[in-house]
């Protein structure tokens, strides 16, 4: 990856330098994701023809047949929102994992291991149980508060983020919070329990355009913030002293990136429930690909996350056809061995 691979694109007075290999990598990932989306659109209990999908996307003219209307209904009400949500949640979880790992300089930092996910989930569950009628838009807000609270708690208790202490405190907090969640679920009335349980297992079944909208806004804001702050984070990785002397405002960059990471996790948890391991393995998979800088890396990480979650979701709903496996479980079956391989390959560094 020498700098000779950088290509300058000029148009009038504007110019941008791009790294060819990285852009190609991102293109390949994008193509793969698009193929997966197509596959996810056509598979299911009702196989949908390609022409119906093209017509639904307004690429081909609509057909007047009844089958077509039926297919459009399936696509619009079930498959399209679900797939969009899977892609967005995967990207969000992967991004937050990448940011957490670079902030803590710890390859094993993951929102699900640091208590952030459990904190967000606990608050959302409490909200669903206490006020079931509250609008869906409040869930991410409350979840963020919970995630932020547990993240700050771990940071304060560990007095810093780059040590074993940080990870161990995060792990024990996540155990504590999940035990608290079990108590909460067992102690409350069973009326709303069904909603909570479906949501909790990490399921994308209940995806609606409303939740997609919510998450999309959040993701757009977060990715812009992360892409803007990425060069500073690159410099920071060179060491604290160098970063300060090069004029990086370490404190503010870290605060912004940390809170954005928590917002991403909380947003995804509040609409799709607990989906683990994506934040842990997607950044590591992205490291195997050629990435020139952390901007490219962020984009390819989020694409890999989207591919992972969408793949797991599609597998979960089509593998044992009438029975649907929750996405969280499929991800765990794929993700846990990846974590084990990771631990094996990094056995000398840990």
């Amino acid at each position, binding site marked *: 990856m020498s700098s000779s691979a950088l290509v300058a694109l000029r148009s009038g007075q504007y110019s941008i330098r791009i790294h060819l290999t990285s852009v190609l990598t991102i293109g390949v990932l994008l193509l793969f994701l698009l193929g997966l989306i197509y596959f996810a659109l056509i598979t299911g209990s009702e196989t949908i023809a390609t022409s119906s999908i093209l017509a639904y996307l307004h690429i081909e003219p609509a057909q007047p047949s009844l089958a077509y209307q039926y297919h459009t209904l399936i696509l619009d009400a079930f498959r399209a929102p679900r797939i969009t949500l899977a892609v967005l949640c995967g990207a969000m979880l992967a991004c937050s994992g990448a940011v957490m790992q670079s902030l803590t300089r710890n390859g094993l930092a993951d929102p699900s291991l640091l208590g952030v996910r459990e904190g967000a989930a606990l608050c959302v569950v409490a909200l669903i149980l206490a006020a079931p009628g509250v609008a869906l838009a409040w869930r991410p807000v409350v979840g963020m508060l919970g995630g932020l609270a547990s993240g700050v708690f771990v940071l304060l208790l560990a007095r810093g983020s780059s040590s074993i202490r940080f990870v161990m405190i995060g792990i024990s907090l996540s155990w504590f919070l999940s035990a608290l969640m079990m108590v909460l679920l067992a102690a409350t009335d069973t009326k709303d329990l069904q909603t909570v349980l479906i949501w909790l297992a990490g399921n994308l079944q209940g995806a609606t355009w409303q939740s997609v909208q919510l998450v999309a806004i959040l993701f757009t804001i977060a990715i812009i913030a992360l892409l803007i702050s990425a060069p500073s984070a690159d410099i920071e990785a060179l060491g604290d002293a160098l970063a300060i002397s090069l004029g990086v405002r370490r404190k503010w960059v870290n605060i912004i990136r940390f809170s954005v990471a928590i917002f991403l996790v909380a947003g995804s948890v509040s609409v799709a429930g607990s989906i683990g391991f994506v934040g842990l393995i997607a950044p590591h998979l992205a490291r195997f690909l050629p990435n020139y800088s952390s901007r490219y890396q962020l984009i390819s990480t989020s694409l890999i996350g989207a591919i992972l979650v969408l793949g797991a979701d599609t597998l979960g709903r089509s593998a044992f056809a009438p029975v649907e496996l929750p996405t969280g*479980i499929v991800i765990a079956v794929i993700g846990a061995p990846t*974590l084990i391989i990771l631990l094996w390959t990094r056995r000398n560094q840990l």
Partner: protein
Amino acid sequence: MSLSANTKTTQQCSHTRRLGFITALVIGLTALHLLYGARSIPIGTLAQALFHYNPHDFDHRVLISLRLPRVLAMLLAGSCLAIAGYLLQITLRNRLSDPHLLGLNAGASLAVVLVTAFPIAPLFSMVRPLVASVGAALLFSLVLVIASAGKKGLQPLKLIFCGIAFSALAGAITSTILILDEDTLDQLRFWLIGDGAGANLHTVLISLPFAGAGLVLSLLIMPQLSAMSLGDAMAKGLGASVQKIRFMSLLAAALLTGSAVSAVGPIGFIGLISAALWRGIHSRPSAYSLALVAITGAAILMAADMAAISLFAPKELPTGALTGLVGAPVFLWIFVRRMR
């Protein structure tokens, strides 16, 4: 000479006092657990039910067929899990070890669920503790292999991470089987979240021989483990074969965990909490410290089970959730204190 004799007697005295105190606590908790609940029963009835059982008396039936099996299962599981945790802590020289954290519980549950879903042996109900022990041993050996690879050997953080990773894997496979196979889910639903309500006398009785085997094995290797606590070199010098003793100790831990999990389901943190309560038991492992830890574990699980029943009275909480609620802060406390 006289001084050392004196300290020895003081020590023995404090040993007896500790043991006596904790035993009295267990007996008291057991009596409380038997007598209070959704329906309180006078203490005279307990004696009557035990010695002159009358199957037509409602109180007698509640005591003998509902509460007694549950209490026995909790006593058995509490002491087994505590001893297993203690053995792991001595053998791995890591006080953060616990059967639940290192994957033994998850392995045992996966094995039980697998054999329930795909019955291979007709006598399955008789060997359930054995199946659970084999599962625990297999998953734990995987955890150990991965965790001890690398230049630095067995690091606490690596061990915990491997435990989490393998537990997550086994848990995900367990959930997949249960979602696909509803009959198994119905059979094991309460057992799987560590709920004592499903305990019956049969499961306790078939767990007993395996738990007994684990206990005897751990008592047999106690002197060598005690020598090993002085360091591997010293232990070799004293004539203990380190590898063999380690293997035996982990085998005993797997047997004990398997019989506990088979009786009450995967319950965590008992070994961690009960060994953390007593100072100095890691430096000099002995049969006495084993007994102390075992009885403490029984007391803790008994207290947790009572809290699970009575905290939100008509509703019952899973016992495993309550031990987690206490155990996670204890884990943190041990870790922070050791880092200092």
